[in-house]
C-alpha cells in the first residue's frame, strides 16, 4: 500500500519534472488536476493552503511538491516527491551546462527561451487562476488575492510581509 503510494508519487512528479516549462509554477495546474481532481489525495482548499505554506517557508518553489508528498505518504513521501521532481530536470541541466561550456552556441538558446516564454506565461497565469479559484471563497479572500497580486506586480514589497498580513487578515476577519 505505502510502497504503491510512493511509486505513484515518484511516477507523477518524475513525469512533471521534465514538463516544468520555465519553472516549477508552470506545473501547478497539472498537479492540482491530478492530485485533487483525479486521485483525490486532498481537497482543493487544502491544495491552495499547501501552496501557501510552501511559499512561506524558505527555499525554492518546488517545495509544494514536498508538502504534497508528505501529506500523502509522510516523510518518505515528501522525500520521494522532491527527488522525483528535481532529479530528471537537474540531471538534464547538469549535462547541458557541461556541454554548453565547450561550444557556446547562442542561437538555439535564444530560440528555446523565446519559444518557452509565452507557454510559461500562459501556464503561470493558469496556475494563479487555479489557486485563486481554490482559495477565494468570498469577497474578502478575493480582495486579498487581488491586493496581493497588485503589490507583487507593482511594488518590491517582500512576499513575507504580504503572507503575514494575509494570515493576520484571515484570523481577524474570516
Amino acid at each position, binding site marked *: 500500500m505505502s510502497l504503491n503510494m510512493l511509486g505513484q508519487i515518484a511516477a507523477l512528479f518524475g513525469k512533471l*519534472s*521534465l514538463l516544468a*516549462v520555465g*519553472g516549477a*509554477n508552470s506545473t501547478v*495546474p497539472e498537479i492540482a488536476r491530478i492530485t485533487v481532481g483525479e486521485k483525490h489525495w486532498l481537497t482543493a*482548499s487544502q491544495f*491552495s*493552503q*499547501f*501552496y501557501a*505554506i510552501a*511559499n512561506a*517557508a*524558505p*527555499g*525554492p*518553489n*518546488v*517545495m509544494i511538491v*514536498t*508538502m504534497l508528498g*508528505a*501529506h500523502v505518504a509522510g516523510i518518505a513521501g*515528501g522525500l520521494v516527491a*522532491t527527488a522525483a521532481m*528535481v532529479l530528471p*530536470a*537537474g540531471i538534464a*541541466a547538469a549535462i547541458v551546462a*557541461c556541454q554548453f561550456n565547450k561550444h557556446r552556441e547562442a542561437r538555439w*538558446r535564444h*530560440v*528555446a*527561451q523565446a519559444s*518557452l*516564454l*509565452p*507557454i510559461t*506565461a*500562459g501556464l*503561470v*497565469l493558469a*496556475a494563479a*487562476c487555479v*489557486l*485563486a479559484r*481554490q482559495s477565494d471563497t468570498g469577497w*474578502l*479572500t478575493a480582495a486579498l488575492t487581488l491586493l*496581493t*497580486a497588485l*503589490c*507583487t506586480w507593482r511594488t518590491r514589497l517582500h512576499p513575507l510581509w504580504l*503572507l503575514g498580513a*494575509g*494570515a493576520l487578515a*484571515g*484570523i481577524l476577519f*474570516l
Partner: protein
Amino acid sequence: MPPRLTRTQLFTGFFQAGIMGFGGVLPIIRRLMVDEKCWLTQMEFNELFSLCQSLPGANVVNLSFAFGAREAGITGAAAAALGLLCAPVCIVLGLAWLYGQYGALPTVRHALLGLAATAAGLALGSGLRIAVPILTLPRNVLLAVAVYGLAFGLHLSLPLIVLLALPVSLLLAWRAAP
C-alpha cells in the same frame, strides 16, 4: 576560469542560499555567488541562469545542478543540490507534520485561509511580471492565451499542452530569430 570549488564549498554555499531564501531564492543566490563569494561574474551568472531557464524544471534547483556539475562533476552537482534543498525540505516536512497536528484548530484554519488567498495573489502577481513584458508581440499573446485556455479552461493535461504548443512556438521563434 577561477579555481575549481570543493564539494564542501558548494554544499555550504548553496545551503546558505536555501535557508535564507524566503519568498524566492534567486536574488539571494545571485548575491551569494556574484557579490559575496565571487564564484561568477554577473555576466557568467546571467548566462548560466538563462541556460537553466530555457530547460525544464525549477530554475534555481537547475542552477545548483548545473553549477555544481561544472565545478566538480557529478558529486559536485549532488553537493550543490543537496545543500540547496536539505534545509528547506526538512522545514517543509516539519510544517507538513504541524499541519496534520494543528491544521484543524479554528485560529490556524482561519490564518491558513487568509494565507492561501494571499499566496494565490503572489502567484498572480509574479505571473503578471512574467507575462506582461512579453505580451508586446502578437504571436506571444496568441500562444499565451491559447495555453492559458487549454490549461485553465479545458483542463487538458500538461504533456498534451506542451505537445500542442511547443512545436508552434518553436517554429515561430525560429523564424523570428536573427
